[in-house]
């Protein structure tokens, strides 16, 4: 028994060491340097307590990035979730070419984010397809393109993000739908319940764990939005987000590791709080929608 236990410990050592060295240690180290004024290139640094955190809360660039991040989260998650659920319900039905639709909707999720961002940069530029379409339906597109205007840049990126993400969440909802026993629908039909009644009374309640998973995963991903911003606008035109801000502060030109770490932990607290809130709301009895 003892030999068996020591063998288990020995065999799990590579994973444990990797976890400690490349996950836990960096996490704790970055937490610690968030309380220092560590800046790369400088040869010394000092303990500054909560100074980085208080500076962040009065830094207009950080507050603007935080506000944009909340707009991004609040503006994408409802659309992504509802559209993904709608698509999942559609492709869950039996019809010819169903596999093609499923694959088609899922395709953007397995395409490189950078590639998608570059394609959308072209679509959204002045004289691009989106501007042409907008003109055709009587709308006036921004003079220099959708990404070079503060009133449209962030919303354009949000639209792209919704388009790109729905396929992945559709697949998760589809798995949730498959797990609902057919007997429940049969019993409902026998009881005279229509399709809409079945959706509200059977499908939606039983999809609650799936929906919770989708919401939490999607929220975490949306709070961490970065690549789209980096490729499409470089944080200009009111599109800077918290992760882009900490990239700028920590890795781009300023190399303020201490300050950037503090920003990262502030974001961590926000995401954790948001996730806990979602768990609490979704686990409450009774409908939450």
């Amino acid at each position, binding site marked *: 028994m003892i030999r068996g236990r020591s063998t288990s410990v020995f065999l799990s050592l590579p994973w444990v060491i990797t976890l400690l060295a490349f996950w836990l240690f960096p996490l704790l180290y970055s937490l610690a340097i968030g309380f220092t004024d560590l800046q790369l290139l400088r*040869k010394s640094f000092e303990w500054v307590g909560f100074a980085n955190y208080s500076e962040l809360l009065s830094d207009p660039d950080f507050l603007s990035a935080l506000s944009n991040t909340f707009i991004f989260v609040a503006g994408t998650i409802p659309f992504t979730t509802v559209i993904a659920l709608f698509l999942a319900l559609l492709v869950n039905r039996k019809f010819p070419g169903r596999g093609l639709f499923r694959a088609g909707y899922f395709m953007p999720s397995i395409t490189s984010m950078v590639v998608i961002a570059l394609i959308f940069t072209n679509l959204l530029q002045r004289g691009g397809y989106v501007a042409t379409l907008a003109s055709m339906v009587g709308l006036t597109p921004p003079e220099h393109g959708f990404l070079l205007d503060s009133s449209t840049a962030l919303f354009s990126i949000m639209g792209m993000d919704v388009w790109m993400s729905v396929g992945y969440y559709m697949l998760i909802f589809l798995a949730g739908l498959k797990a609902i026993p057919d007997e429940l629908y049969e019993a409902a039909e026998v009881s005279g319940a229509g399709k809409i009644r079945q959706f509200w009374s059977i499908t939606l309640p039983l999809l609650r764990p799936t929906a919770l998973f989708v919401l939490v995963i999607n929220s975490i991903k949306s709070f961490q939005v970065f690549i789209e911003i980096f490729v499409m606008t470089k944080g200009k035109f009111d599109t800077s987000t918290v992760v882009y801000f900490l990239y700028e502060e920590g890795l781009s030109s300023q190399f303020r590791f201490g300050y950037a770490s503090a920003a990262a932990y502030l974001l961590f607290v926000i995401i954790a709080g948001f996730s806990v809130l979602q768990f609490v709301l979704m686990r409450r009895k009774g409908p939450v929608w």
Partner: protein
Amino acid sequence: MRVWILRLMAVSMLLLTTGVSAETTIEWWQFWTDATIKPVIEEMVEEFEAQNPDIKVKLTDLTWSNGHEKIVVALSSGSGPDVLELGSDWIAQFADNGHLADISDGISDTRNDFDGWSMSTYRGGVYGHPWILGTRVVYLNRTLLSQTPFGADHLPITMVDLLTAAMAIDSLGDDTYGWGSNAAEKHRLYKKFLPFFWSNNAQLFTDDGELCVMTSGPGIDALIFYELLHDSCGYVANQRRIEDAFLDGKIGIILSGDWLLKRIELEKHNIDFATTLFPGRNGPGKSFMGGEFLAVNEASDHKAEAVKFIKFITSPENQVKFCKANRSANPSSREAQANEYFKNSLHLQTFISQLKLAKHPPVDPNWVHVEQYIEEAVEAVLFEDITAGEALYRSRVKIDELRQQ
């Protein structure tokens, strides 16, 4: 027998060890990786090693996208290469923090043979050897110009000339623009605006560098002029897209560097274009100057060998070789500048002439922040309808605060 074998092994080990210790290996981090130039870099390294059998060079490639980060991390951790290629904007930042070696003594014999030292001189020390310099000139689409009253041969000499020519081209059609106006691109926009600023006799700082004076009348006028150019005939995009549109015949006039000449040649673009000096108020103006420098890591144990290697790479012959392969227009070596290769090309001559009229930003460790504030002022005017005076004032306040820290 066994004793003899052991003795033989000991002597062999001694000889091997002696041989290894006599050879020094220096490491060079550089950014030139594309197929047109990398073989030349490797050839130069091999030639250096052949001439200096006691020195080996380990070549490491960096990319433009993350090379800066790698250098920062390496130097901060006290490691890094012996020789590193640095953009002129970075030198003061690294030197100020004690990461670069002062090479004044090593280059004293050849100092007068090169241009560009002012960009690597910081607090009396020299922290980088100028290698390939760079400036920007005005590119004109002659086909579009020929359709205007100015004609294909028109070369704007003053800023007003530039504006009127750009507006004339802009009026040719809905999908034709007069001027390529940069946006949403860090580290680029200020390089486009400062030539207008300097050419209008404005200064960022007083001569002693103590005071920020960017809100002077000429400075505000320069930004108003830039806004006028942007609003009346600007095609707004990042530099790559502006160049794409110029090559597609959509933009009449742009400001760009020698890399565009390389692109036109290698991609075989069929465009009738001219290059000319950046215009000023009453004649040629001041364009932006930067460059690639070779620096020695302060932590290097082989500084003498590193300087020797740098002097070899930056020799006039090697600069010409490099420029021919990379189609670069501005070697730092004066002897290289006089080479027939540059004299035979009108476009390269434009760049060499422009470099003599170009200006570089102050050698300031805080420059990365200052350039950001300049870009914020320009963007505020172009995209947020804030007046030039207000935008420059806001940026000046930030620069003053930064310099007080």
